[in-house]
């Protein structure tokens, strides 16, 4: 009887399908109840990764919040940061930690250049035009890197080793990257809250027209914001390069995750970006351990869609750039 066979087959498929979703979570809960040491190790990895993710989203959230532009070139700015720090270390022999501020300066200049040439003329244009223009920038820079440095993966041989606290390993490269991320975030926060220019940027993010009325030079704020956003991407990319291999196409996945973090945390919200970054980092690390393949990314997109639907203003709603 083929019908019996097919229905039995259908039940089997259903069971294996469901099991695929339930088993990893059951495994996770068992591990949790047994207080497995691996959980703590994963927590550390997740926090380390999440801190860096938060930094990748910071520049994007600033540009999005202040200028209302979706910058598709953000991912390639990260990659440019990686290659900057890589080339100053390998060709000039400079310490990579000095390379990071160099990456920031280079990307600040690149950001301003891109803004003046591409973004400024279309800042009032419909969003699809902004999208395509920044995408064009992405292609130009990406292929430029490909031609200059070949498409092969590169890495900085730091071999920093790792710290052992109890049973938990803390890879030092990632640890330093996290410290840089935290330091940068605090510095940017102080800049936005304490300095005159920072207040102007926040004012423009709040209300562009209002900012113009009270005499803020909005075009100038725009290009500074774009420059700072790109510089932040440079720092983020440079600190990722401390512990990871990269190629000209690494930026795509960081770009998508940065979008998720920006929406998750709330447009222009720094603390939101930080918490969002940690959440994505933890999901990726735990998901990578318990779920097969890249299924963790499914959870991230579901979280993203859920946030967009239920609270599009983000977990930390409102603007507090």
């Amino acid at each position, binding site marked *: 009887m083929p019908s019996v066979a097919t229905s039995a087959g259908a039940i089997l498929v259903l069971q294996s399908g469901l099991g695929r979703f339930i088993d990893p979570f059951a495994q996770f809960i068992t591990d949790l109840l047994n207080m497995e040491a691996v959980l703590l190790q994963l927590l550390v990895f997740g926090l380390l990764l999440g801190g860096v993710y938060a930094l990748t989203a910071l520049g994007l959230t600033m540009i999005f919040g202040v200028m209302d532009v979706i910058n598709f070139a953000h991912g390639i700015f990260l990659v440019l940061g990686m290659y900057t720090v890589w080339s100053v270390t390998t060709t000039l022999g400079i310490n990579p930690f000095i390379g990071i501020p160099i990456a920031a300066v280079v990307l600040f200049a690149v950001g301003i250049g891109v803004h003046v040439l591409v973004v400024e003329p279309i800042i009032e244009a419909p969003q699809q*035009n902004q999208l*395509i223009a920044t995408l064009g920038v992405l292609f*130009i820079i990406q292929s430029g890197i490909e031609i200059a440095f070949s498409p092969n993966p590169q890495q900085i041989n730091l071999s920093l080793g790792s710290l052992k606290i109890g049973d938990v390993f803390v890879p030092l490269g990632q640890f330093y990257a996290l410290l840089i991320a935290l330091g940068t975030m605090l510095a940017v926060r102080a800049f936005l809250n304490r300095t005159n220019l920072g207040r102007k940027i926040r004012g423009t993010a709040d209300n562009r027209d209002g900012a113009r009325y009270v005499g803020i030079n909005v075009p100038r704020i725009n290009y500074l914001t774009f420059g700072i956003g790109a510089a932040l991407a440079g720092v983020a990319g440079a600190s990722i390069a401390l512990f990871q291999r990269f190629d000209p196409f690494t930026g795509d996945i960081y770009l*998508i995750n940065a979008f998720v973090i920006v929406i998750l945390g709330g447009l222009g919200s720094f603390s939101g970006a930080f918490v969002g970054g940690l959440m994505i980092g933890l999901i990726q690390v735990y998901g990578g351990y318990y779920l097969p393949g890249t299924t963790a990314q499914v959870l991230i997109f579901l979280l993203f869609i859920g946030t967009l*639907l239920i609270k599009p203003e983000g977990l930390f709603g409102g603007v507090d750039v």
Partner: protein
Amino acid sequence: MSAIETVRESYRLLDDTKFGSIVKGIFLFGLLAALPYLIEVDVAGMELAATLSLKVLILTLIYAYTAQSWNIMSGYTGQFSFGHAAFFGIGAYATQKLVVSFTLNPWIGMLIGGFVAVLYGLIIGFLTFRFKLRGHYFALATLAFAELINVVVTNMSELNAANGYYKPFPRDYGASYGLSAFQFQSDLPYYYLIFGFLVVVTVISWIIKNSWIGLYFFAIREDEQAASSVGVPAFRYKLLGIAISAFFTALGGAYWSMYFNTIRPNTVFALFKNVEILLPAVVGGVGTLLGPIVGSFIVTPVSEIARTSFSGINGLDRIIYGAFLVAIVIYSPNGVISWPERAKKLWNRVRNNKEVTDK
């Protein structure tokens, strides 16, 4: 009256009649139908076929077709979708999966894929419209739905995961090369098939535009609140828009899967596929009937010709392509379709200036 003025006059007369746009449409499509032969015509020792092959023409029509489908939703109702690769990929995968696993004829698989895409589109539309997402947020939500299905398919062993499908031979599903098998042994029938697809979607697009549906769509695009207040059921019509658009985009994906030999998640669901689908419409003119076709004839050949002529240095073609995108968006924000209008205005201004200086 000089000859050119006679032509101009009769053209204006044609414009005024009721059937003017139909005549022009038939002329344009006739031109497209003759194109495979036109590119081989020798003009002063040069023929277009040297740079423009039949393959490029097919690719051009595929993207004209998908952009036209995208346009029905995003151009007419103003709901900017950045996730049409989801529908495209669903169409491609449904066709291949049903052919390979159930030896179903690809035409039936294509229709099933179309309906699955409609279902997915309705889910996306229901959620996003219900929660009133708009602007950047709507675009990012559609992108998220597209990336979601990309990752899901990449991880599903039932759909061959990251390996995708290799197109089966017609005899594997009990057919022989020809229209009924959706496979041909040369490129020319493929060209006329996608040409037929394009005619169908353009005619439907034209009917929608000239019916009350189009009126409602445009009302929603211009001011949704005002439209709702005069009784346009905005929610339902936006769902209709996404459903039509998803269906035809999926058919494009099915064609793609039957023309090329392999499909993989990172080709049909790729992040960049979202852009390739909407690009011709944006370049040609969003919300216009001709824009997607004209746009595709600009974007696709440029990309393909750049790829073949700068193959010496890997990546150089993408730099040229990127610069081209930036330039066209900055200098032609309303699409190529507005160029004749702009040229006319410019010409008038020049002429008026001349008259002023003559006096």
